[in-house]
C-alpha cells in the first residue's frame, strides 16, 4: 500500500491526489474504455454465443443424421421382414393351395354321393288313387244283397283287397327300412364332408392370417417410408428397447467370455508355454483370448449363413448350397472348439489340484495327488462348462447385429445430448460474461460519478 503514496509522510493527501487523479484520468478515458469493454462483450460473449449456435446446429445435424439412419435401417428391416413373409407366404400358399384341389375333389365326391343317396331316398311306389275307398265301400256291401253268388264275389273282392293292402303295407315297410339304411349311410358321408369343409376353412384362415400379418407389415412399411414424426418416434422407441435388450445379451456375452477365459487360460499355459508376452499378456493367455474370439466369429458366420443376421452381405448373397456349407463348417468348428475347451476345463482342474498338493507339500503336509475329495465332480463340471460355454457365446452373437445398429442410434442420441448441453453451457457463460462486463461498466461510471455529473451539468448549460 505504501508504494502508492506519493508523499510517504502524508498518506491521506497522497491517496486523495491519487483518487482524484485516477478519477480525472478515467473520466477522460471513459469513451475508449467503454468501447474496449463493449468490444470485449462482443468478442467473448458473442464468441460464446456463436459456439452455442454451432453446438445447436451440430446437435441438429446429428439428430438429422440419426433420423435418416433410423429411417434407412427401419425401411431395410421392414423390407427384410416383408421378403421373409413373402417367402413364407409363397411356401404356405404352394403347400395349402396344392392341397386345395384334392380337398375340393373329395368334397365334390361327398356331395355327389349325398345327392345320389338323396335321390334314391325319394324313389317310393305311389299307392293307387281311391283304391282304399273302393275296398271300404265293397266291404260295407257284404251281407246286404242276399244273393250268395254276389255275396261270395264281394267277399273274395274284400279278401283280395285286404291282402293287397297288407302286401302294400309290407312293401312300404321294407322301402322305409331301406331308406333308413341309406340315410344312416349318409351320416358318415356328411361327417366326411364336414371334415373336408373344416380343413378348407383352416387352410383359408391360415392364408388369411398370413395376409393380415403382411397387411400390417405393409402398413408399417408405408408409414416408415413416409418418414413422418410418428414413424420416427416408433422406430426410435423400438431402437431404444432393442438397445437395452441387446446390451443385456452383450453384457452376458462379455461376462461369459470372461468366465471362459479364466477357464482356459491356465491349461493353455501347459499347451503354449512361452516367456514372451503380447500387449502385456502371456502368449498362453493371448491364445486363450484368440480361441474365445474364434468362437464369436464362428457364431457370427453361423447366424449369417442361416440368414438370421445380415452383418456380412457377401454371405447373404451367396447361393443356398454354399451358405449351407458355411453353416455345416461353422457348426463343425464350433463343436471342435467346444470339445477342445471341454478337455482344457478337465486339464485345468487337474493342474489346480496338482498346484494345491504341491503347495501343501511345500508347507510340510504329506499329501498325494488325487486325495482331494470331490475332484472328479469338479473335473467333469469344468469339462461340461468348457463344452457349453462356446455354444452359448456363439448363440449370443445372434443379437450382435441389432446391438450394432441400435448402439449407433444410442451413441448418436448421447452425442446430440452432450453437444446440446455444451451449447447450453456456452450460452449461459455468454450471458454471465455479458452481464459481468455491463456491471463493470456501471461500476466504472459510478467511480467517476463526480466528474461525470459536472460534465453533464456543463454540457447541459452549454447546450442551453
Amino acid at each position, binding site marked *: 500500500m505504501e508504494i502508492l503514496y506519493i508523499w510517504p509522510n502524508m498518506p491521506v493527501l497522497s491517496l486523495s491526489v491519487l483518487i482524484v487523479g485516477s478519477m480525472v484520468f478515467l473520466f477522460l478515458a471513459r469513451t475508449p474504455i467503454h468501447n474496449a469493454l463493449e468490444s470485449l462483450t462482443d468478442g467473448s460473449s458473442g464468441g460464446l454465443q456463436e459456439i452455442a449456435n454451432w453446438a445447436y446446429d451440430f446437435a441438429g445435424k446429428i439428430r438429422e443424421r440419426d433420423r435418416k439412419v433410423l429411417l434407412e435401417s427401419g425401411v431395410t428391416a421392414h423390407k427384410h421382414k416383408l421378403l421373409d413373409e413373402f417367402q413364407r407366404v409363397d411356401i404356405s400358399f404352394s403347400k395349402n393351395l396344392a392341397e386345395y384341389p384334392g380337398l375340393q375333389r373329395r368334397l365334390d365326391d361327398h356331395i355327389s354321393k349325398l345327392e345320389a343317396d338323396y335321390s334314391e331316398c325319394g324313389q317310393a311306389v305311389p299307392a293307387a288313387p281311391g283304391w282304399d275307398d273302393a275296398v271300404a265301400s265293397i266291404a260295407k256291401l257284404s251281407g246286404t244283397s242276399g244273393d250268395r253268388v254276389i255275396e261270395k264275389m264281394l267277399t273274395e273282392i274284400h279278401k283280395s283287397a285286404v291282402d293287397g293292402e297288407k302286401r302294400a303295407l309290407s312293401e312300404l315297410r321294407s322301402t322305409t327300412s331301406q331308406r333308413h339304411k341309406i340315410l344312416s349311410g349318409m351320416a358318415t358321408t356328411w361327417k366326411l364332408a364336414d371334415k373336408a369343409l373344416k380343413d378348407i376353412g383352416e387352410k383359408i384362415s391360415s392364408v388369411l392370417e398370413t395376409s393380415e400379418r403382411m397387411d400390417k407389415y405393409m402398413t408399417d412399411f408405408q408409414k416408415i417410408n413416409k418418414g413422418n414424426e410418428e414413424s420416427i418416434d416408433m422406430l426410435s422407441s423400438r431402437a431404444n428397447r432393442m438397445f437395452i435388450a441387446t446390451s443385456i445379451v452383450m453384457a452376458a456375452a462379455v461376462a461369459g467370455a470372461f468366465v471362459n477365459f479364466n477357464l482356459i487360460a*491356465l491349461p493353455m499355459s*501347459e499347451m503354449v508355454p512361452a*516367456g514372451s508376452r*503380447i500387449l502385456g499378456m502371456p502368449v498362453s493367455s493371448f491364445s486363450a483370448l484368440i480361441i474365445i474370439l474364434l468362437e464369436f466369429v464362428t457364431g457370427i458366420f453361423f447366424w449369417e449363413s442361416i440368414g438370421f443376421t445380415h452383418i456380412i452381405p457377401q454371405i447373404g448373397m451367396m447361393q443356398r448350397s454354399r451358405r449351407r456349407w458355411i453353416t455345416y463348417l461353422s457348426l463343425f468348428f464350433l463343436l471342435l472348439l467346444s470339445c477342445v475347451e471341454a478337455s482344457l476345463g478337465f486339464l485345468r482342474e487337474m493342474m489346480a489340484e496338482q*498346484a494345491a498338493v*504341491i*503347495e501343501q507339500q*511345500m*508347507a*510340510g503336509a504329506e499329501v498325494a495327488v488325487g486325495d482331494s475329495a470331490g475332484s472328479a465332480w469338479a473335473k467333469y463340471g469344468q469339462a461340461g462348462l468348457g463344452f457349453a460355454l462356446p455354444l452359448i457365446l456363439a448363440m449370443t452373437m445372434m443379437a450382435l447385429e441389432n446391438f450394432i445398429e441400435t448402439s449407433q442410434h444410442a451413441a448418436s442420441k448421447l452425442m446430440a445430448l452432450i453437444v446440446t448441453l455444451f451449447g447450453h453451457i456456452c450460452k449461459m457463460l455468454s450471458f454471465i460474461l455479458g452481464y459481468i462486463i455491463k456491471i463493470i461498466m456501471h461500476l466504472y461510471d459510478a467511480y467517476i460519478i463526480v466528474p461525470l455529473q459536472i460534465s453533464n451539468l456543463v454540457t447541459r448549460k452549454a447546450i442551453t
Partner: protein
Amino acid sequence: MNSLNAIKDRSRRRCRGFSFAVAFATILLQGCSDNAAYEAAVCVLADVSGTYADEKEEIVKITKSRIVSKMLPGDSLFFIRIDSNSYNEDDLIANLQLDYTPSKANQQKIAMGSRLDEFAQAETRSRYTDISGAMMLCTDHLNTTKSGNRILFVFSDMKEELKPNLKRQFAADEFENIHVAAMNVIKLNADSANPKVYRDRLSEWEERILNAGAHSWGVFNDSARIPDYIQQLR
C-alpha cells in the same frame, strides 16, 4: 479367353492381398509383442553362523512355503549360505529356474524342496558371518537372469563378523534394480539389553544397501508377508 485372364488376374490380386494381410498381421503382432521381463528372480541368503544356525529349518520352511510354492513359471531362485567366506560358488546351495510349462515347473519345485530339506538337515555352522560376500554373490547371480523383478531376502541377525583377511566393499551400483529385505532378524542378547544397538545396526545396513543403489530396503519379521511382497513387486 479374356474372361479367363481376368479371373486369373483377380485370383492373383486376391492372393497378393491375402499375403499382404498376413504379413501385416504378423508385423502388427510382432510390434505388439512385449519385451519387458515380467519374471521374478529371488535370492535367499541363509545365515549358518553362530546362534542363527539353529534357524536353518525355519528358513527352509519359510522358503518352501512362502517363496518356492508361490513361484510362477519362468521365475528363478538362488539359495545361498552365509558362512565365514560367502563369496564362494560352493555357498550356492540351490539354483532353480522354473520351466514355462506348469507341470514341469511343479516337478522342479518338488526337487528344489528336497534339496532344501537336505540343507536343513546338514550339520553346518560357521564361525564368522560374511553377509556382504553372500550379498555380492547373490547380486552376481541375479544379474545373470533377465528377470524384471529382482528380490534379495537375507535371513540373518544382520551382525556381520568378517574374517581378518576379507575385504567387502559394495560398488555404487551393486544392488541396482534389486529390492533387499532382511527377514526374521532375531535379536541378540546385546540387542535385548539395549534396543538402540539393534536399531543402529539395521540403520547402518539400510544406509549401506541404499548407497549401493538398491531399489528398496525393508525389514520383515512376519514371513506371511513374503508372498504379498513379491506379488506387489511383480
